[in-house]
């Protein structure tokens, strides 16, 4: 089998607890392969067990499908392959097959005395990697290891395709990503294997692939579906194939999902405070990302559209966003500076905000980005609810946020963008924040439209926050909100100097945004912890924010830059959120971002803000945005609407939210992305 070094990893990745990632494949492979046999017939079970033992496999037999499923769930990496009978009294074999495929993504072999073509076909369509007719012979069992290897290989390919760029990241993250599922490990493994080569290749590949492939717009709904699928599978076990199957979206390829997943994972990483990535890898990725931003822009547009479609975004917002998206590029450049400054302002005790990256469980970033807290505006309750559901998919949140009206969205969107960029090439862990870049661009724009947009910049700081899933969105948002909303974000402790950003005032909406962000962030939970702040922020200004948010989140999650427009939005959102979260975590960056946004807002020229936001977003996106950006996006979104909310209101809202939000570690790994990276 994989005689190549990769082999070792492969086995590790997919299954084997026995083999750690990176370990060389044991010489005796396939001996030791861990097989789970499920059959209600005791006779068959006994025979199979003996046969498999003779093949030197490690066998576990089970005569009830339910028990088998719980065994698999309890020990996700405990088995390499499953052999199951088709006809079982307590559960249909195909159903078990589906569950395993989705939740654990293990190769499953079906078997039955029934050799009818119809049944065999069913096995194929349900995803069985093989179908054995009883009586099963030894010869048939001897080679089942090939399915394990094949799966690894496929996973590897997915990762590679989705963005080898991230591989490098992956590697770095390898250690960090201990939690990552085996598939992730695979990726890591792969990364380590050819990180360097892959990076380059990936980048190229990414670009080429993006060029060749029609850009997939990760709309809010799509992202929601994605997140739902990922949640269902468990982030550890979520592999593109399974996600794709779960999502059941025609026309969506595994590569699309894989790259999106990478981004998402990066985002998650960010949220969990993976700081490593932030700095360097991101930079490297950023560049490619930038290039990729092109696609993001499309994404932005799409998101906007999606949002608009969903009715979330007000028509005008959509238009604004789009316009923003278009103008993103320009905005981006201009923003960088101001944002930075702003960030400083915000750098209040962000640490507080830092919701523990990822730890913010309460934030539930993953689960349901409660972005919707308080988002009074557009967020419709049900949307919020849906957002919550998608929690995991921060991206969803982002998406949702945007659709919702920015409130919940904001966080989500921020997240989303982050996630997306991450997936590019593999969840560029934080490092690939590059994706963020796209956001900034878009963010800037939307913000403009809203007027609030600018607020995003302050958010820039947020983006950082966003990264830290944990980062208290609240706090961050508060910081971000400083501008109008951010103040409110005194979310959990982030004493974002709400007032710090003078410009923020204009951001009043931002404040709201912050709240939203905060709330959102909270909702995001681990994943989006940083988002929460955003939620809070979002709440305030759903509309404007939405737009921004859209852009922001979009970017954040997508490193696909193609969505630049979205990025802009997202950036702004991110910024907003990022600020809040960043603030908390002390991430100036976020603050900067936010500030930028805020500044923008404050500056009165929305454009400015937007730009700032964008820039921040970009940077944010790049670095921490991934994870945080989403949040930031939210935040920014919030910021975007500074107009709507009065500062005081926002502040209070934020404050409230902050309290609720755990000090999220602002993981914004915005290590100062250069907005430039975000490229339009």
């Amino acid at each position, binding site marked *: 089998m994989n005689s190549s070094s990769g082999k070792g990893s492969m086995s590790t990745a997919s299954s084997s607890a026995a083999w750690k990632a990176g370990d060389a494949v044991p010489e005796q492979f396939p001996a030791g392969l861990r097989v789970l046999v499920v059959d209600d017939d*005791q*006779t068959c079970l*006994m*025979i199979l067990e*003996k046969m498999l033992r003779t093949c030197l496999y490690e066998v576990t037999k089970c005569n009830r499908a339910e028990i088998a499923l719980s065994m698999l769930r309890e020990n996700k990496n405990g088995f390499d392959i499953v052999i199951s009978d088709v006809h079982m009294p307590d559960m249909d074999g195909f159903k078990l097959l589906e569950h395993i495929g989705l939740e654990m993504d293990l190769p499953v072999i079906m078997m039955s005395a029934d050799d009818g073509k119809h049944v065999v076909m069913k096995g194929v369509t349900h995803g069985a990697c093989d179908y054995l007719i009883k009586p099963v012979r030894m010869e048939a069992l001897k080679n089942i290891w090939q399915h394990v290897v094949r799966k690894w290989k496929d996973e590897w390919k997915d990762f590679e395709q989705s963005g080898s760029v991230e591989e490098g990241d992956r590697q770095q993250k390898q250690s960090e990503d201990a939690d990552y599922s085996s598939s992730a490990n695979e990726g890591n493994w792969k990364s380590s294997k050819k990180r360097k080569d892959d990076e380059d290749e990936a980048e190229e590949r990414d670009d080429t692939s993006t060029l060749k492939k029609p850009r997939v717009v990760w709309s809010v709904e799509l992202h929601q579906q994605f997140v739902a699928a990922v949640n269902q599978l468990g982030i550890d076990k979520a592999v593109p194939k399974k996600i794709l199957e779960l999502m059941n979206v025609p026309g969506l390829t595994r590569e699309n999902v894989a790259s999106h997943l990478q981004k998402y994972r990066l985002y998650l990483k960010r949220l969990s405070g993976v700081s490593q990535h932030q700095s360097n890898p991101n930079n490297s990725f950023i560049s490619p990302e930038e290039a990729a931003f092109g696609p993001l822009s499309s994404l932005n547009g799409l998101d906007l559209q999606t949002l608009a479609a969903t009715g979330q975004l007000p028509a005008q917002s959509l238009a604004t966003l789009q316009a923003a998206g278009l103008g993103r590029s320009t905005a981006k450049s201009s923003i960088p500076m101001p944002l930075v400054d702003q960030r400083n302002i915000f750098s209040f005790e962000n640490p507080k905000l830092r919701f523990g990256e990822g730890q913010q469980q309460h934030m539930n970033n993953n689960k349901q980005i409660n972005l919707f807290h308080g988002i009074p505006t557009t967020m419709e309750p049900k949307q919020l609810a849906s957002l919550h559901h998608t929690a995991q998919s921060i991206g969803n949140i982002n998406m949702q946020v945007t659709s919702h009206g920015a409130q919940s969205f904001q966080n989500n969107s921020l997240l989303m963008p982050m996630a997306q960029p991450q997936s590019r090439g593999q969840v560029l862990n934080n490092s690939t924040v590059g994706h963020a870049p796209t956001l900034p661009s878009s963010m800037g724009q939307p913000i403009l439209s809203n007027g609030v947009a600018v607020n995003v910049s302050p958010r820039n700081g947020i983006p950082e926050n966003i990264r830290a899933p944990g980062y208290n969105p609240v706090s961050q948002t508060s910081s971000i909100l400083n501008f109008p909303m951010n103040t409110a974000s005194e979310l959990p402790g982030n004493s974002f100097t709400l007032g710090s950003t003078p410009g923020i005032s204009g951001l009043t909406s931002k404040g709201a945004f912050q709240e939203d962000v905060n709330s959102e962030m909270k909702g995001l939970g681990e994943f989006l912890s940083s988002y929460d702040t955003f939620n809070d922020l979002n709440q305030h200004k759903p509309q404007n924010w939405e737009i921004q948010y859209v852009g922001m989140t979009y970017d954040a999650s997508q490193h696909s830059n193609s969505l630049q427009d979205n990025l802009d939005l997202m950036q702004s959102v991110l910024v907003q959120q990022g600020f809040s979260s960043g603030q908390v975590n002390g991430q100036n960056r976020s603050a900067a971002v936010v500030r930028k946004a805020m500044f923008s807002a404050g500056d009165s020229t929305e454009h400015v803000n937007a730009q700032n936001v964008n820039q921040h977003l970009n940077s944010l996106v790049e670095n921490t945005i991934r994870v945080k950006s989403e949040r930031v996006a939210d935040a920014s979104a919030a910021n975007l609407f500074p107009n709507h909310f009065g500062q005081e209101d926002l502040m209070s809202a934020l404050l409230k939210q902050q309290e609720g939000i755990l000090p999220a570690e602002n993981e914004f790994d915005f290590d100062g992305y250069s907005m430039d990276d975000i490229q339009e």
Partner: protein
Amino acid sequence: MRQSFFDEEILDRQFIQLEKLEDRENPNFVEEVLTLYFRDSTTLLATIEREMENVPIDFPKVDRILHQLKGSSASIGANKVRNEITKTRELWQQGNREGAKATFQEARKEHDTLKAKLEPYFQQLRQAGPAETAMRPR
């Protein structure tokens, strides 16, 4: 004695597969598996017979049990039993209750014959001891 099983096609090559699985750790593996088989099959046959006469008849249930019996019979290499069960199932699925019932009786007969013949065979094996088993032609 053993050869007669194959000659009469009572057992098929699958039985040989089981024999191959025997080793020092599991010297009586085949006997163990067969014991397990007969334990379940006797119950299943009784259930089928009962269900076939039941009113109202639960068609799917009988079909499921027939399928299971088919699978386990095939797994141990009980050739004739499996064939009869397969025929029974086909008729049953076609809705031919009477035909299925008749064929089922044939299946039952084969099953009982197999059991009756295997018992002395295993006894013989146990008496012969491991050496005999090792020398047993494969």
